[in-house]
């Protein structure tokens, strides 16, 4: 049983189910499975496998790290709801980590993370040497107007976007997503954090009804 604080992180914000267990700086166990659906059934068994692999249990955890998106709405909620349930019953913090920040973790700056948001759009965020911009959702075609100096590019849509952002080279991730989430969560563990909440960036796509109510006469 390692003496450093254990942080269990997981992410289902895209077509995968991923988990990593961190003890201090060391990754004790990790899993990453590609899957388009079925994350809700797979996530908890996977977490139990990761804990068992490292010879640890739920009660040994010091914190939970969870990917809050942006990404697949349902996928993000699967992980966030599980993290909030675990945090409540274990009495430990659950720390929400943006998947854009996780992608940028440990890569050289300046850097722009560009993630596929479907419908010819991307989620993106700039990371400078002294801070980061706000996460945003834009049409792929609008990126050149929005990003002045992208630096290097990374993320699932980096290669797709690079022809529109001349001079920008494309970097692969520094580490698997779940490990990055675990490391960011571990670093924030000492500071009080709000409960993890999904980072949607995109609205709920609901339209008010077209037919107005009748005029009511006395």
């Amino acid at each position, binding site marked *: 049983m390692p003496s450093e604080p254990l942080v269990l992180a997981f992410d289902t914000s895209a077509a995968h189910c991923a988990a990593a267990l961190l003890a201090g700086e060391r990754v004790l166990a990790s899993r990453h499975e590609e899957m388009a659906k079925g994350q809700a059934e797979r996530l908890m068994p996977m977490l139990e496998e990761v804990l068992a692999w490292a010879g640890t249990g739920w009660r040994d955890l010091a914190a939970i790290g969870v990917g809050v998106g942006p990404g697949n709405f349902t996928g993000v*909620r699967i992980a966030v*709801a599980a993290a*909030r349930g675990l945090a409540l019953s274990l009495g430990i913090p659950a720390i929400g980590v943006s998947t854009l920040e996780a992608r940028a973790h440990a890569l050289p700056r300046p850097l722009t993370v560009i993630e596929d948001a479907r419908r010819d759009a991307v989620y993106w965020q700039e990371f400078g040497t002294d801070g980061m911009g706000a996460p945003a959702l834009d049409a792929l075609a609008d990126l050149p107007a929005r990003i002045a100096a992208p630096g290097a590019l990374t993320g699932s849509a980096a290669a797709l976007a690079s022809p529109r952002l001349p001079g920008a080279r494309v970097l692969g991730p520094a580490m698997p997503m779940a490990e990055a989430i675990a490391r960011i969560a571990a670093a924030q563990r000492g500071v009080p954090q709000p409960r993890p909440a999904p980072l949607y960036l995109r609205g709920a796509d609901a339209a008010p009804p077209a037919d107005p109510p009748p005029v*009511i006469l006395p």
Partner: protein
Amino acid sequence: MTKSLTFLGIESSCDDTAAAIVRADGGAAAILASVVAGQTELHADFGGVVPEIAARAHAEKLDLCVEEAMARADIGFGDLDGVAVTAGPGLIGGVMSGVMCAKGIAAGAGLPLVGVNHLAGHALTPRLTDGLEFPYLMLLVSGGHCQFLIVRGPESFTRLGGTIDDAPGEAFDKTAKLLGLPQPGGPAVEAEAGAGDAARFAFPRPLLDRPGCDMSFSGLKTALLRARDAVVAEHGGLPRGRRADLCAGFQAAIRDVLAEKSRRALVDYLACDPPHPAFAVAGGVAANRAIRGALEDVASRHGARFVAPPLALCTDNAAMIAWAGIERFRLGHRDGMDLWARPRWPLDQDAPALLGSGKKGAKA
């Protein structure tokens, strides 16, 4: 005597996020806490529940509701014997968030997990509130459902009939919307109907001319829309008095259909010779006094005890889920961490589908 069991229940299949603690001691049961966080205001601008908006709210309210229920009951996770959660049917985004939150709690607290059918929660409520004995006749009538069931056991249901299209609660909501009344439509339409003349407008009583217990309410909505448009065309708007008449006529039509179909369902149910005949209703529509009165009449004419749980336990809540979880748990049912959220999950697996078909199968 059976062992005392304390369960946490979690419900998030429509637009209410709910958590409750129920303790069952032998035959008696007590609700230690029941928390329901509604979302009416979030959906108000859209004239109905928007699934994605509902799912977003559930994901961030579930653990807060559980925390509040635990605090109100003044117990810790160590005092629980299990976690029950609605695993369907319903809006899948909300159901999935509830199931995942429940899995997280069960795993972290080392508790057994029991997935519950939302409709079984409603159908078993009369046992929680009134200790009804099997078999009893149940009318589930809400914004999303309308069916007659013979409840034979915690996992044994025979569906005698149900709506082939809309649910009455949905028709009440739609009526309120068409008549410029607030949501939820049930109470608003009932209040207006009190001052109206049910005989001024002739509304259809769909499927009364056919044998059996199946119902249809979508034609009634269309009839209401036509009647409203005729009044608006005549008066250049909808006079308040006419609005009350429309509400009264509409409510009477729903009442008559439910009463006659209940009579037929009772005849079928009594044919199986239950030792303690009882007719129970659940769902938000059961709160309507005109409808409730008519159903009560039918029950008493056939010598069946009439049971309508208090409104807070008729509409969506988590106490019914905790209770249904206890009933399933007593039968030895446990779910794994791979518990599956099901958008469609009919209670009676043998009855032919009334709603939904094809590859995805029956809806409810």
